[in-house]
């Protein structure tokens, strides 16, 4: 079996200390990252290999931690804008998370039906969760109708960070924000739940791409923001193998922890075991030897 490709692109100066995003650097990250991931010359060609013009694209972000630690509109809107270049209308692109409250707190202007990409929470009037729980292995959850009704192709645009319960939260765990009861899956370091939720057909069949926001990585005491352990990695990580990209994210978290003199997650008794479970379920590759990591800089 060939290795799974994961691409990390660093953009020096992409984010200022005050959190301002340099649009030109960010654009170059997208071009380079998506291009390298798919073997294409740039973002547009890359997206064409992953999405069809008929797709309705959901960009699932993770807004739990407010402005300080959420992928901001200045990062996600330019990404959403790329889809118009491959013939997907803005109205068929939605940036979403579980609640409007959290999106607003993270700096998003909600847009349920205006011009531009849609921006909405599952709690938007008329959206909500599916009425019946979807049962899959140990998962029994009502799934956001954003995903099940409005999206044919999903991007997990997840902020990469340490997580007190799961070890690391990245692309797969981001889908905890797509169900009504994520709190029920915190036992045993969220294992096997992260993997099993991703394996559930409503998620697995829609997921096309993971983009990990590692512009600032909370490498300890996540998921909330703690300035002391927020490392400006200035990077985005791209992958189509959902396990490999999360595994690469985890290794970046470990590297940053080491730089700060912190013990490994295993030493703290909370390595992200769900990655192995996901591999066992056939969702992707977790072992370092099975992942080809391409690191670049713009």
């Amino acid at each position, binding site marked *: 079996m060939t290795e799974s490709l994961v691409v990390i692109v660093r953009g020096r100066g992409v984010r200022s200390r005050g959190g301002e995003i340099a649009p030109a650097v960010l654009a170059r990250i997208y071009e380079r990252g998506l291009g390298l991931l798919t073997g294409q010359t740039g973002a547009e060609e890359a997206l064409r290999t992953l999405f069809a013009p008929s797709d309705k694209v959901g960009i699932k972000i993770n807004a*739990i*931690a*407010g402005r300080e630690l959420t992928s901001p509109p200045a990062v996600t809107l330019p990404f959403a804008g790329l889809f118009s270049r491959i013939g997907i209308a803005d109205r068929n692109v939605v940036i979403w998370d579980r*609640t409007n409250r959290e999106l607003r707190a993270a700096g998003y202007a909600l847009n349920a039906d205006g011009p531009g990409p849609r921006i909405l929470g599952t*709690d938007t009037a008329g959206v*909500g*969760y599916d*009425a019946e*729980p979807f*049962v899959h292995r140990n998962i*029994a959850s009502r799934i956001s109708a954003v995903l099940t009704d409005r999206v044919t192709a999903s991007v997990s645009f997840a902020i990469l960070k340490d*997580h*007190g*319960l799961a070890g690391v939260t990245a692309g797969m765990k981001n889908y905890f924000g797509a169900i*009504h*009861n994520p*709190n*029920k899956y*915190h*036992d045993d370091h969220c294992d096997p739940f992260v993997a099993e939720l991703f394996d559930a057909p409503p998620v697995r069949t829609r997921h096309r791409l993971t983009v990990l926001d590692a512009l600032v990585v909370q490498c300890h*005491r*996540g*998921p*909330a923001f*703690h300035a002391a352990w927020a490392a400006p990695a200035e990077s985005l990580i791209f992958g189509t193998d959902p396990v490999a990209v999360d595994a690469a994210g985890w290794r970046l978290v470990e590297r940053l922890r080491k730089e700060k003199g912190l013990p490994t997650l295993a030493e703290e008794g909370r390595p992200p075991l769900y990655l192995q479970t996901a591999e066992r379920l056939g969702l992707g590759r977790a072992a370092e030897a099975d992942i080809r990591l391409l690191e670049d800089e713009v």
Partner: protein
Amino acid sequence: MDRRDFIRTAAGTGAVLAARPGAFVRDLYAFQETANLSHVEARYYIKLPDREIECQLCPRKCRLGDKERGYCGVRENDGGTYYTLVYGKACARNIDPVEKKPFFHVLPGTAALSIASAGCNVNCKFCQNWEISQVRAEQVTAYDFPPRDVAAAAEANRCPSIAYTYSEPTVFYEYMFDTAVEARRRNIRSLVVTGGLINPEPLEALTKVVDAIKIDLKAFTQAFYKDYVRGDLAPVLEAIKLVARQKIWLEIVYLVIPTLNDEPEEVRKMARWILKEVGPGVPLHFTRFTPMYLIKNLPPTPLSTLRSLRKIALDEGLQYVYTGNIPGDEGENTWCPTCRTLLIRRNGFAVEENAIKGGACPSCRNPVPGIWA
């Protein structure tokens, strides 16, 4: 809210008339919708370094970083302080017959003002109220109904008791506790309907302000608790023992699910344990399962199973053993264990006859344990 509003909910319909988004149920109340969350500091938790906390309310002892929420979905760490999101926020409130809880030895034939918030600290695959128990606080429509108003509403509607029920009152502990204090000031009793997964310290404090607790003993094996409840049996048994030592009333309910917890020998063991640890006078209810939530592939409990389990418990020496959810069954009635006089005749949630006089059998004067006035 007046009595008419409540009466419209028709006590005895058997349904939880919860206020939830329209997909589930008609909202029969003209309540003021608030759809907001409370931000009231929780009780029974400890602060840890780096804005972490550990909740000490129930045996899960959720340890959470800032912004994280407990397993129950209604408590949240905000900046290192732990908050209940459901204080004074009822997502269900009804007037029910007290028999519906079920309490069979507490003020028979009276109505209990019954309230719940969202959330639960377990995830029973057979939950009858999962649409409010297995959701986070913001996923139900919650109404402002602070403790003082609950007590006042009970009084205004001539309910001699308030029941904390439907979901799991442990997770709305502060709301329940303060309501019970308010209720006691008005001579209204407080009845708790719980799965019993609550730590000893908060439970003991609770027993000082409430009058009766009904504990769901969901099985007598850890394996069942692990697979079908996502909790542990041992703390429930400890809770039963603790309540039994207090000066409040206790009843126990055992929902019988075909093939999962209906093994006669397990039930016999349970009956012996109850006899030893609690005594013969505690009412034990064997109630009928109806396919629901995540267990839809099993049939309703056969009546013969309920009756034979009841007989086992009676044979082991328990004196007040009932069948439940079988309207009209003989097992719904209360009989004097000494002279076999029929004391209370029930039909479903209705009390058709109550012969108990001064808390005793009218024939042999044997005291009948319970709260009768």
